[in-house]
């Protein structure tokens, strides 16, 4: 029981904000509700891009009311939403002089490494900036999920060392991690030629292009319907 109460409260905050947004998405009085909601998203590991964009919009309209701490949290949450382009969407709304601040420069560099698939550099940089990323629970896991997403688009079988570098897990922890995915997500481990292990990633239409549904072959009913009068 003791643990359910805060969860209920969290849901209420989320619900209240969503209702406010639905009633009027352009209401400056929502500022503090939206800021609280950002903190709520951080602690409850949830995410609502629309609400966060709405808050950035109010900051854009009234720069004096901007809290850079909240902006930083929104941006970290946006990084965690990769592969969605949310981080960029947020930057479009944040004035350039604010983006020049050190913590935002760091986040932009982190985003750049993720956007260009440079995971080892990303993890290096992240470890140098623990104070920024560790403030948001679930950060590592979210980035690992993104790394696995891109690897799954690209590889049928990925060498263990490549995976290890991308998700920043090695040795025994990696064994455990793999075990988990073998059991739950259909990963298969194989012996590679020579040194390392190979991991067979689940099939999808991007790493097995032949699975791509050829929608082009189908004819929508509306089109056929056009010739019904003729056929009759």
């Amino acid at each position: 029981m003791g643990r359910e109460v805060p969860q209920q409260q969290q849901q209420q905050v989320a619900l209240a904000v969503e209702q406010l947004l639905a009633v009027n998405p352009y209401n400056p009085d929502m500022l503090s509700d939206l800021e609280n909601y950002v903190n709520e998203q951080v602690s409850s590991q949830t995410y609502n891009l629309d609400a966060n964009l709405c808050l950035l919009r109010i900051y854009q309209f009234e720069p004096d009311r901007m809290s850079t701490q909240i902006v930083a949290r929104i941006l970290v949450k946006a990084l965690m939403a990769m592969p969605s382009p949310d981080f960029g969407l947020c930057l479009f709304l944040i004035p350039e002089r604010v983006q020049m601040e050190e913590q935002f420069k760091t986040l932009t560099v982190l985003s750049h490494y993720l956007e260009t698939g440079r995971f080892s550099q990303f993890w290096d940089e992240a470890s140098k900036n623990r104070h920024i990323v560790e403030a948001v629970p679930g950060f590592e896991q979210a980035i690992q999920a993104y790394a696995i997403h891109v690897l799954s688009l690209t590889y049928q079988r990925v060498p263990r060392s490549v995976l290890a570098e991308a998700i920043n897990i090695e040795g025994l922890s990696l064994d455990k991690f793999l075990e988990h995915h073998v059991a739950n997500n259909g990963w298969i481990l194989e012996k590679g030629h020579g040194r390392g292990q190979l991991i067979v990633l689940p099939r999808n239409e991007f790493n097995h292009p032949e699975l791509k549904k050829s929608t082009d072959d189908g004819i929508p009913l509306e089109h056929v319907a056009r010739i019904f009068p003729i056929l009759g």
Partner: protein
Amino acid sequence: MAAYDYEDAPGTYDETSATQRQASSGAPPSQDLGYDPNFVPDSVKSFVVHLYRHIREKNVYEIHQMYETSFQTLSDRLFKDTPWPSVDAVAHYVDNDHVFCLLYREMWFRHLYARLSPTLKQRIDSWDNYCSLFQVVLHGVVNMQLPNQWLWDMVDEFVYQFQSFCQYRAKMKNKTEQEIALLRQFDQAWNVYGVLNFLQALVEKSMIIQILEHEKEGLEQFTATDGYDYNGGSNVLKVLGYFSMVGLLRVHCLLGDYHTGLKCLQPIDITQQGVYTTVIGSHITTIYHYGFANLMLRRYVEAIREFNKILLYIYKTKQYHQKSPQYEQILKKNEQMYALLAISLSLCPQVKLVEETVNSQLREKYGEKMIRMQRYDDEAFAIYDELFSYACPKFITPSPPSFEEPLVNYNQDAYRLQLKLFLYEVKQQQLLSGIRTFLKVYSSISLAKLASYMEVDESKLRTILLTYKHKTHAVDTDGKIISNADVDFYIDDDLIYVVESKPAKRYGDYFLRQIVKLEGVINDMDRVKLD
């Protein structure tokens, strides 16, 4: 920044509005010289009397004629460089009708913005007039039937004047003390919350989203009647609400909020014809902003598809608009969209999505530049910069200025930020062009071999391949992954396999069209009577 000067962009669409804006050559015409706001020529008297009568009689056809043709003709003949007579001077010819006077003033200001440069006081007065007009509409006391063209122009002009005000206000350096005092005093005029809330209120009050939903289920007619109401009701609120969704898309694009902009447009199905396609200005504005937002969201295929469709449409129909007051804007937007198409295709070379006519126009205009854009060197970035600056919306900073000395101009801040972030994206993709070239000529190749060809080490090559996959797979509004990839490949351990993407032959479509054609021929032959 490129040689292209954004500030002096010659007559971009957004500087001009729905009605024709003539670039005032030479000295700006003086507004008060020889202009008597109380003098009403007979032709104007007759114009307002007839327009008023047609509006009362709900004669949409005549209203449209007077609005589109007579107003332009009179403006050209009598008010080339002066405003129309003041509303007070014409009011008694129209029973001092409150709503008619608001409509008259709306046109009065539109004409003023188009041909002269409005003073700050006039900008504020025009805002007040829009407030009164929209209040009247929102409170449902309007019982008129107005042409779609006019209703579109209202929304279009409202957003244009907002954008124009933001640009004007952001140039603080040369403001007089008097102007600054006025800006402080009327700080609610063209306030961004006010603008957004009016558009939003029109969308909500009109129930347009529900109406479009009902129409899908066959419970209501809207698109089928082009938004008009043939049961004695008024189309004004409904259609204003409808066009306000496009207005919201545009405002959000001006603010750099592409995600929210597209969300506002969602109730309109742009894969179909709709009321937005009944007015050429609305059609173009919708697709231009829709395409631009998708480009910024990296949904290149979607952007290419829609630009292709509208450019083909303009190519086929522009001759019919030659006499329209919007003709200049149509051509201008046409050129800008070719530039955006050139950008989209350079980042996502899927030429097969582009129709032949559009493609040959594109090659003619940008063929040479597009080849240089593939090189991803400094010169290439300069071209991306140039095309973006030429074709982007006129971004605005919505917040009021700081009135503290020294006064600074900030009218380019928003544009610079969007440009910078866009070029950043281009730079992240600069190595992809090289990858494409190689992948196209191999069906399989080892990572080691490709790495040596590209003169990078193997782990660097792996990151480039990941980048290619990430950048060519966008996330759509529902969170689904959509592929924009022109070349498909996958890696198995350390071998790359390339999958040739054959253009799917659309047999079904082809046969359907042939069947319809044949039927037409047979019908024609049946009609021929042989004696």
